[in-house]
């Protein structure tokens, strides 16, 4: 097939423009993180500083609480992602395959939880967590994040399960599997893309969550990285170089994580939409 050149070029240019637009903030983040403090305001707006330095990185890693924030974020996001995905797999499967009396109401309730602006809920949740000793603790954050992510993740997983023919687990049961064995050995492996998508979604949501982290945590010990970033803002100045360096470092695990699951993710995001 011969396609004319002009539309192809226009298409590529449009994609290029979009990529540049999307990646430019990241580029700027990286650029500022390498700019020495003395050049930051003196050079004006430049695409690349005349001199670069890694000193912000070494400062952030050696002299700030950033490693703690980083570790906390990793624990909170990782645990949340895993717990939510396990819960959502089970509940999504139930919603997809079983019909039970309260199904309609449970789905309604889960939708309802997604309707409130989070700000409204901060105070009541704080009130609930305080007597339980869960404020200022990573466990508390994990509990809250899990609670908020399970409904959406459940719907996400349900759509993936809906895409898997019922015949398969029926065949497995006839082959001698219990319902749970059929779920574990036949359905779950086929839902890997869905699981990857859910893990990725929840991980990033927890990784960048600021509101609850800010409200439920004070002090550096249990702070996650988005809260930690704010410590670079002092009353009189913002230490942009260090803040950007921390930002770049914080991108690494998220990027790694997506690199790891992207093979499944690309299948996953489209799998629910079109029945194969």
């Amino acid at each position, binding site marked *: 097939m011969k396609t004319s050149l002009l539309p192809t070029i226009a298409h590529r240019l449009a994609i290029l423009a979009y990529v540049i637009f999307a990646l430019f903030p990241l580029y700027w983040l990286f650029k500022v993180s390498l700019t020495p403090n003395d050049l930051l305001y003196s050079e004006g707006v430049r695409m690349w500083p005349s001199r670069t330095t890694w000193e912000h990185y070494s400062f952030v890693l050696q002299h700030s609480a950033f490693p703690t924030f980083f570790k906390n974020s990793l624990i909170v996001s990782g645990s949340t992602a895993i717990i939510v995905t396990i819960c959502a797999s089970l509940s999504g499967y139930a919603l997809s395959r079983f019909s039970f009396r309260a199904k309609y109401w449970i789905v309604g309730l889960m939708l309802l939880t997604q309707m409130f602006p989070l700000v409204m809920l901060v105070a009541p949740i704080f009130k609930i967590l305080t007597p339980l000793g869960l404020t200022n603790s990573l466990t508390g954050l994990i509990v809250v994040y899990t609670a908020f992510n399970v409904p959406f993740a459940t719907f996400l997983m349900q759509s993936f399960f809906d895409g898997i023919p019922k015949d398969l687990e029926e065949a497995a049961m006839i082959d001698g599997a*219990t319902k749970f064995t059929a779920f574990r050995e036949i359905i779950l492996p086929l839902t890997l893309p869905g699981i990857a998508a859910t893990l990725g979604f929840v991980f990033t949501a927890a990784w960048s969550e600021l509101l609850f982290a800010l409200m439920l945590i004070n002090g550096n010990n249990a702070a996650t990285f988005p809260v930690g970033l704010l410590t670079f803002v002092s009353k009189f100045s913002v230490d942009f170089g260090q803040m950007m360096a921390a930002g770049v470092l914080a991108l690494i695990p998220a990027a790694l994580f997506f690199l790891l699951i992207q093979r499944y993710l690309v299948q996953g995001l489209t799998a629910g939409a079109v029945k194969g």
Partner: protein
Amino acid sequence: MASIDIQNVKKAYGHVKVLHDIDLQIKDGEFVVLVGPSGCGKSTLLRMIAGLEGVTGGEMRIDGKRVNELHPKDRDIAMVFQSYALYPHMNVAGNMSYSLKLRKTAKEKIAAAVASAASKLGLDPLLDRRPKALSGGQRQRVAMGRAIVRQPKAFLFDEPLSNLDARLREQMRAEIKKMHGDLKATSIYVTHDQIEAMTLADRIVAMHGGVVQQVGAPLELYDRPANLFVAGFIGSPGMNFLDATYSAGGVTLRDGTFVSLPSPLALDDGAKVTVGIRPEHVVMGGEGTGMAASVDLVEPTGFGIILHLSLHGLAFKVFTLDRAALSAGPNVQVVFPSQHLHVFDEGGGRCEPR
């Protein structure tokens, strides 16, 4: 191998009754075919036997043991799905051995069972492939292989060949028949296909609207259909039906033609009846020998010729092997041999001789 007893089995989804009092005794080693129009409940009945659907009423027995409440995995029955339902993440060998693995069969035994089933079905070169990399016919074979490796009590087939092209279907049909000859396994087979039903079945069960219409050997259903539904459903092209009145050992058609029957029926004179005759039994006669009909359409099938006629203004079909029919004029004469007439009463039931 096992017998299957279905006693007064009912199925309802909420208020919708899908199966009404199904009674069916399937003997050990028998090949039973369920036929019927779409939505008549064939799949539902099959799935109830497999344990995939609950039983609303009545009793289901396998080998004399009540199984109403038994989980599918404990029924020891194999099923071939219309969609094949192969496990996409396992290769052919994995698909075939899954049931044996679940039963914790020894590795050597599994390997031997898979190898023997694979060679029976010509699957040896494909054992490492995933289902995605197989053709439709090969997938179908794998589905069959998965069923036969474990030597179950009974085989259930839900339209297993309907996704194949005509040639392959013919071939697989013969293979299924051969396999049943070898294994002598109790089998229940659902199909839409007339020929599959006629060729495979020891007994055919014709269903309509969740009710069993007739159970019998294929030729019995063909020769002596119990009612209008079975008469119209079995046979292709389908049976012709004409309104008539019964009197004095014969029937009078609408145009006044009287056809006498071989023996008088258990009917009152003047009773309204429906007369049926199969297209292949109609005889084309010369001038003045029978009823005049006009030719609407001539369909040569290669094997024979289907003539679409108008008889007394009604559509009427004739099937003949005589190529002379191709050059038939716009008008023909049709004769009804009386031994091939089927007479049904007003309720649609078959009228028996007195």
